[in-house]
């Protein structure tokens, strides 16, 4: 599990790489929260292009970050999910609160 972040034109891009499951969820929450707390941005894009595996634990991780940023009025978008992650996001209607965008990390 590796999490990288960078800011480009007021957008914070967070790249989640590796495997997101129960074992890595706490590390992911903590690391993403650190990036969200530090960054001055107008929106956040979670780029999942290098996320090799995710189960429904990922929903909890992403929803928790969504609730946190909603309080600050900053929207979060999802980019490049795998077929399986995309299926999980659709069945949980996650895209209704964190819309899918085409663009990932530049």
């Amino acid at each position, binding site marked *: 599990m590796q999490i990288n972040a960078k800011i480009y034109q007021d957008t914070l891009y967070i790249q989640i790489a590796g495997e997101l499951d129960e074992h890595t969820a706490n590390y992911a929450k903590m690391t993403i929260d650190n990036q969200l707390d530090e960054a001055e941005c107008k929106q956040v894009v979670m780029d999942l292009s290098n996320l090799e595996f995710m189960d*429904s634990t990922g929903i909890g991780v992403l929803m928790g970050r969504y609730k946190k940023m909603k309080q600050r009025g900053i929207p979060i978008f999802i980019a490049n999910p795998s077929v399986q992650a995309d299926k999980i996001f659709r069945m949980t209607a996650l895209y209704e609160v964190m819309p899918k965008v085409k663009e990932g990390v530049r």
Partner: protein
Amino acid sequence: MNFINEMNMTIQSHSINEGFARSVVAAFCVQLNPSLDEIADIKTAVSEAVTNCVVHAYPDCVGEIAVWVGLGEDRTVHIKISDFGVGIEDFNLAREPFFTTKASEERAGMGFTVMESFMDEVTVCKNGEKGVIVYLVKKLSNVAKKAQSRQAND
């Protein structure tokens, strides 16, 4: 059902073993030449079932999780994941989308819904006096098999 091959393993309910369990099951299924999508579906469903054991069956201790896989001659994958933990009070409620007993831990309550969506059959029952058995079945398509026989003929 006649199985052409079967495997058994027992793991402890450490969360790090989730990745191990889904990789072992996926590797075992490869001999049926599933598609990459089918393998990913199976890995996701196994991960959900094992996560349930780690989080819910053994909330305050480390227990055993038994994993059995049977490969049917009709290209079906049968997976049985059993624990000997605290059990599930209401099976129907547990299978409802978004139902979780641990909402405060940022849990989605989508484990069984994901299993149902990624597999063809999901059965949940008591494991004797204690614990839960999750039985998953996935019917593999014949696409990969056809591609393989085409390759052999070339």
